[in-house]
């Protein structure tokens, strides 16, 4: 799982968050700063524990846009060394509210739900938000 890296360097994460390209051909009213991975670089996201899940030492991660939520789930199962039973129940939540289907790309989750330049995902071993 070498594709998921911890990004220890704050300033490189900030470079990803820079305003970048906001031109909009159709005049759509997009509002708010976004974690701009539109130049093809990686999506940076924070993983936070919920519902009694083990806390990760490394909280900030980066992935290419096309990686899926399922990819993150599989990675976490191994990284956290979950036992077989725990592995059945690993959930990833966005907005502390909903769990996207596992084939959803991190790129589209980021485009829609990053807030003030950061995408936060919560992982839990129970259905913390249903």
């Amino acid at each position: 799982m070498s594709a998921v890296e911890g990004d220890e360097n704050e300033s490189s994460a900030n470079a990803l968050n820079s305003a970048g390209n906001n031109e909009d051909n159709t005049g759509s009213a997009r509002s708010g700063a976004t974690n701009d991975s539109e130049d093809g670089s990686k999506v940076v996201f924070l993983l936070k524990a919920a519902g009694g899940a083990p806390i990760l030492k490394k909280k900030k991660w980066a992935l290419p846009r096309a990686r899926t939520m399922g990819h993150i789930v599989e990675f976490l199962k191994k990284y956290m060394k979950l036992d077989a039973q725990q592995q059945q129940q690993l959930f990833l939540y966005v907005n502390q509210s909903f769990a996207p289907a596992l084939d959803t790309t991190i790129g589209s989750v980021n485009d829609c739900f990053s807030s003030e330049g950061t995408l936060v995902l919560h992982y839990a071993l129970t259905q913390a938000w249903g």
Partner: protein
Amino acid sequence: MGNASMDDGDITRELWQSRIPICFILSDDDMSKVNRSELPEPLYLMLSRHLYFPCFIEKIFRYYSTYYKENLADTTNHLSIHNLWLEYESIPLKWHYPIGVLYDLYTSSLTSSTCHLPWQIIVHLSQFPENELIRFPDRESIEAYYMSTLKEADALKHKGQIIGDMQKRDHKQLWNSLLQDKYETFWNINMKLMSYTDNLLYFRYIPYRIYLLDRPYLQKLFAPYDSEHDRWMTLNDLVQYSLNHELHCEHFANGKKMLNTNVNDYQVIIHGVQPPLHTPVQWLSEYFSYPDNFLHICLVEKRT
């Protein structure tokens, strides 16, 4: 939209009632393992476009498993509802896409003949494609997925305020009336999700997904009204923006097939029809969404 004999409520009712006739055929491989002299006939079902295949998996499995009665105890046979999967033209069907979306996307794109009804789907009882598909879930998991999608839609439309304020029994009512085909009961609750908040006369962002063959669906932030230019955004605007944005993102990725961003090269299909491209997306979101409150839009390249 100028038709005097039909109002918007009639449209939602029409959509609610739309069904697809499906012919389920057992795969050759599984057919060969039937140990009765009588082979299973195809199973014909008329299914709602906005439901999900797992809602019917027990019915389908029950039908075919009667042909394997003597084999059920044989553990080497791997005959189990958990191994059931559906295929169309070699494509394993994802369970979490509404039935209508799968039909519109695949039958328009893949089959050379113009008549696709009844929709012929192959039922597999073995050799589950682990790498391509997640196993069909139980009823509770589908319900959980449906609720999750509703929450996501509300997060986009209203920052989650409306669904967050609803009672649990309202959530249950939405799902149950969907399963039980109760239009009035469904819309009693759903209309709250179609209302406005924050002194706006429209949703903050439109919940939508655009499906194309051979790539993950597109989902972006798109506001239905451009206050700067006092302009309602149209279906054409939404599709064009999404294609442009996606191409821009892909531009730097290697080895990707170039996305065609010319809207006119596609049929834009929602619920099996092609709405006029000048339709305001706010209207579409209110009246043409699926019961999960998303606009599921299939882009099918026009044949030259």
